[in-house]
């Protein structure tokens, strides 16, 4: 029994099946990230957990209690939305205290809870402002503060960083990770950004087209993906998929991460021409067009000078390569 248990949850809109049977257990205090491409049903799944959508079939249980028929407000959850969703007519303090006020908590307790949450997020000076007077980053901090005030059993985050700019996104990401350590609460976090997933999660749930593809710790997914979808989704830049037959292997597809390919000007397994080079300072990404394998990405650490149209040779590290069958399923060693 965990903080959240999903058993055979499905969701259909008319004849369209959006969630095709999800079983999942999230442990107490765990930071669980749902990740997948747009339209994979991750947000719908979160809304089912929140009670904003009804599951067509299956059971949702929070702390061992079936909550399918329980209203969102009584599920002991708090949700942070992508668009912040602050009440425009209320001050920051009232925004954060509204849920407690609705629950009939005494005024002094509400003030104490709001002040405690405001301290945690450095929102003190903003408490008397209205949402319109805040910047995007401040609004999202208020939205997170509103969630903290309720002391929920379960925090739900629906792509909370998508509307923020890059620098703010990193800062808020660190803030959320710090809050998770500080509060020790169970958190479910939806994102399409695999970097957010990798950096925040204790456990990642990779979803595709309404189905769970793989569940595991970030490094487990990185080092041990079950199929080409997970292998391609986790890791940036994306894994290279090579036609294994052309390299004299028995498997159908060989996946090699860009950091596991050696690049040389003189000799190597696959010949090609450099089509583009991205220098990021700490690392250099070289895109090589090969006649047999198409465009491959190589990630080199440090600065490297490759010129466009230069001939280059690639050698995948066989020990770090993944093998997949024709259906994209991973072939294990010796299997």
């Amino acid at each position, binding site marked *: 029994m965990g903080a959240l248990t999903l058993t055979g949850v499905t969701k259909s809109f008319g004849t369209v099946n959006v969630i095709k049977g999800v079983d999942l257990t999230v442990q107490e205090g765990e930071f669980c990230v749902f990740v997948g491409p747009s339209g994979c049903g991750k947000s719908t799944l979160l*809304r089912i957990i*929140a*009670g*904003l959508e009804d599951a067509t079939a299956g059971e949702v249980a929070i702390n061992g209690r079936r909550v399918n028929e329980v*209203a*969102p*407000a*009584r599920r002991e*959850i*708090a*949700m942070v*939305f*992508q*668009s*912040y*969703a*602050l*009440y*425009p*007519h209320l001050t920051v303090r009232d925004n954060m205290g*509204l*849920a407690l006020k*609705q*629950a009939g908590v005494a005024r002094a307790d509400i003030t104490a809870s709001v002040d405690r949450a405001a301290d945690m997020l450095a929102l003190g000076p903003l408490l008397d402002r*209205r*949402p*319109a*007077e*805040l910047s*995007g980053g401040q*609004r999202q901090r208020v939205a997170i503060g*509103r969630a903290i005030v309720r002391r929920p059993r379960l925090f739900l985050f*629906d792509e909370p960083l998508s*509307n923020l700019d890059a620098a703010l996104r990193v800062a808020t990401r660190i803030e959320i990770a710090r809050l998770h350590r500080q509060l020790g609460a169970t958190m479910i976090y939806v994102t399409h950004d695999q970097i957010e997933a990798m950096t925040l999660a204790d456990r990642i749930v990779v979803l595709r087209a309404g189905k769970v593809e793989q569940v595991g710790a970030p490094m487990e997914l990185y080092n041990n993906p079950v199929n080409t979808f997970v292998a391609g989704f986790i890791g940036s830049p994306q894994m290279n998929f090579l036609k294994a037959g052309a390299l004299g292997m028995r498997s159908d597809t060989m996946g090699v991460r860009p950091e596991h390919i050696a690049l040389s000007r003189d000799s190597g397994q696959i010949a090609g021409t450099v089509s583009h080079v991205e220098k990021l300072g700490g690392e250099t990404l070289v895109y090589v067009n090969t006649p047999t394998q198409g465009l491959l990405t190589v990630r080199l650490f440090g600065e490297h000078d490759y010129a466009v149209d230069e001939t280059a040779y690639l050698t995948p590290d066989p020990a770090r390569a993944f093998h997949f069958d024709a259906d994209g399923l991973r072939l294990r060693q010796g299997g």
Partner: protein
Amino acid sequence: MAQARISAGRSIAAHAVLITYTLIALFPVFVILINSFKSRKAIFAEPLALPTRETFDLIGYTTVLKQGDFFGYFQNSMIVTVASLFFVLLFGAMAAFALSEYRFRGNLLTGLYLALGIMIPIRLGTVAILELMVASGLVNTLMALILVYTAQGLPLAVFILSEFMKQVSDDLKNAGRVDGLSEYTIFFRLVLPLVRPAMATVAVFTMIPIWNDLWFPLILAPAESVKTITLGSQVFIGQFVTNWNAVLAALSLAILPVLVLYLIFSRQLIRGITAGAVK
């Protein structure tokens, strides 16, 4: 702001068009106002002339205020307009919220059915409405007019408001649900304030035809005690002789309350508090 990029020439042209339109629209009002302060002879001699020391005459206003219960008519019109407006906005907004917010079987059909009223004039049903009012004993009451005008105003209200309510952020309503607000609180406290400009638009569109209507007051409530101002002014228009002074004075006075209501709503049109709510 994009305004900075619009050249002066374009701006002048746009203003010229708008000013011309304003003048055309205001001209009849202006003619009514100046003539209401002139003697009968002067009205016919030079209808477009401003009242001078010789032609200035308040006979129209004194006639109106002496003859008939003009303030009573005024009050009736106010009651009917404000009450109808209240019900149109309340029920229209509620129906629009249900149509835009909840998925249920027949949602689209219900919406279309409600919108049908925009295309079919309610006056086609006058005979049936009269029979209904006679049967329910509502003839010669203000309630009859309020009911009919509420029905008349609802289709457009539902149509416009449901479009606007679809634009209110789902996240905001869901945040309210997670925070334990009831659907009624979400409707009254979160959604209504955000569609206030649309409500004001609907109010203006609903109010003017009700205030100006002659048809239903004449048929459903012609009794002296429940006459509206438009019907009351008709006593000065005879088959053979029309007391133009009185008619123009009555019309001038009738503009005032509607102008006040319009000013109240138009301020709402401009004010937007959505900024900063989401994104």
